[in-house]
């Protein structure tokens, strides 16, 4: 049986925070080796991924294709650094393999391919995730499966029309086993959000989704929102995550908001030290 299975007892917040911390540590090491990598995004989404993979999702790390698994659809393929760090902590891939992130012929690409174990969707073309998640939720429901579908998407992806096509259909079909986690980190390719998307939560509500808006870097809020998304009440669930790019590393948190965060080669030691200090 899968080790993580939507527990009913009190969430182990310290344990989840420790997982998120370890994932951040992996990410820094990966980005350092490469000299780049979407480290801002990865650090920002770490808490949500830790809550998903170590508290909410049902899956079997030894058998990532287990038919009864909950699906986690990472719509933003460029966030792969966070997914690989999560998979390593979850035991889906060996921790050692993280060293191959972004290397030629590695399974741990800069942008996700679904040939890597645990990856449900090819990312990279933004605006694909939510629609595919809708299809998965329809298919699982048709099979009478209790499995749910969790879909991460970004604030930039809210500018893709396909995201709203999918949002409409999810509520039309009453997909109450579908949970969208919208990473509102305030950045996109050209810098801070270039097209006004607010109010994000109200938009999802207007599209018929049960919606909450939380601090996506506060583990207690993330876990509470995931628990709140469990009821099968005929409506899809949206969790609007307000996250800070670079979260956990002071220098990166306060650096200019950029899609590619700038890190000088001699800065990595300092960043690693900041991460450890912040975690305490």
């Amino acid at each position, binding site marked *: 049986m899968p080790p993580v299975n939507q527990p009913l007892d009190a969430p182990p917040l310290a344990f989840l925070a420790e997982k998120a911390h370890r994932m951040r540590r992996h990410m820094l090491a990966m980005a350092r080796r490469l000299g780049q990598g979407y480290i801002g995004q990865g650090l920002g989404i770490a808490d949500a991924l830790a809550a998903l993979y170590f508290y909410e999702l049902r899956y079997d790390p030894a058998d990532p294709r287990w*038919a009864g698994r909950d699906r986690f659809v990472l719509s933003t393929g460029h966030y792969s650094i966070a997914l690989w760090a999560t998979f390593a902590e979850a035991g889906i891939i060996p921790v050692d393999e993280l060293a191959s992130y972004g290397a030629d012929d590695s399974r741990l690409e800069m942008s996700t391919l*679904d040939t890597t174990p645990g990856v*449900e*969707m*090819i990312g*990279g*073309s933004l*605006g*694909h995730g*939510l*629609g*595919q*998640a*809708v*299809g*998965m*939720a*329809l*298919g*699982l429901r*048709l*099979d009478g499966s209790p499995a749910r579908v969790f879909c991460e998407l970004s604030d930039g992806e809210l500018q893709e*029309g*396909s995201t709203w*096509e*999918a949002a*409409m*259909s999810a509520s*039309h*079909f009453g997909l109450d086993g579908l949970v969208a986690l919208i990473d509102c980190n305030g950045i996109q390719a050209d810098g801070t959000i270039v097209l006004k998307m607010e109010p994000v939560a109200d938009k999802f509500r207007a599209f018929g989704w049960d919606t909450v808006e939380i601090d996506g870097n506060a583990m207690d809020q993330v876990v509470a929102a995931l628990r709140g998304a469990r009821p099968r009440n005929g409506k899809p669930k949206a969790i609007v995550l307000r996250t800070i790019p670079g979260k956990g590393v002071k220098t990166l948190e306060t650096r200019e908001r950029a899609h590619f965060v700038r890190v000088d080669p001699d800065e990595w030691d300092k960043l690693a030290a900041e991460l450890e200090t912040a975690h305490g």
Partner: protein
Amino acid sequence: MAERGRTLAMGEQEAVAGTAIEAPFGRALAALGRTRPEVVGVTADLGKYTDIHPFRDAFPDRYFNVGMAEQNLIAVGAGLAKTGKIAYCTTYGVFATRRAYDFIAIACAHSRAAVKIVAGLPGLTTGYGGTHQAIEDLALAAMIPGLTVIDPCDATEIMQATAAIADVDGPVYMRLQRAQVPVVLDAQRYRFAVGKAALLRDGADVAIVATGIMTPRAIEAAGALAAAGVSAAVLHMPTIKPFDRDAVASLAARTRAVVTAENHVMRGGLASLVAEALFDAGVARRLERIGIPDQFVECGSVPHLQKKYGLTTDAIVAAAKRSLGA
């Protein structure tokens, strides 16, 4: 003055001469659905107009109408496929290829998902003009790695292909003819196979290589040519990708000239594939091409447009004669 034709309303149809079958795709899909519980139907507000209603009526819980949202149509189909379903997604060819191309490429083809895109209004089978006539869809579809592309010629083939593409490992783009669809091939004798050409008539002088609705016209043309003393073979190419290059090259090698006939622009479709196959096989033959010119086509009645742009039996006959220097 002769009465002028007119653009028909969407869903209206010119009278069909000879035997026809109503909604062959939908019938075949409903039949398939009875033995294959994993088959589902998805459409984008064009269920009626893509003949999927027999499947909807038989399996309402396995039918999803996502509304007029073609990117989502393909994305949802891909998601369904990832839960083990075989998703038949229907819309018009123009909207599938032009609007949802990225989703077909990545969510279906790159992901090897069992999404079967069934595409209405191929080429000049509608008078609704350039927005509705899928004149370059075969080229667009065939350009995507791992996408199988089918252009069936009649009701018999549509019914057989509808079932056959379920067994293709990965996505398929198949052109549709809807409502009353002529029966040309004998359902008892003909066997559609993905990736295989069908030599419908042998001949020694000229090879007519045709696909889709041009194949029945090629058969008629071969008959007319025979009466004029020209021996014409008809090679039907229902599968555009993977393309049966050997069948084309070997037939061309034993005839003196080649004519291609397609309901599609002449670049990137059948004519280009035939030229490439001949070149690669080192078979140099004169090649005459029948197809839609490199332009958008106006509105009008279908027979008028087909005649104006040369998608006719007469045009094939003339091309065959030209190809032989007659």
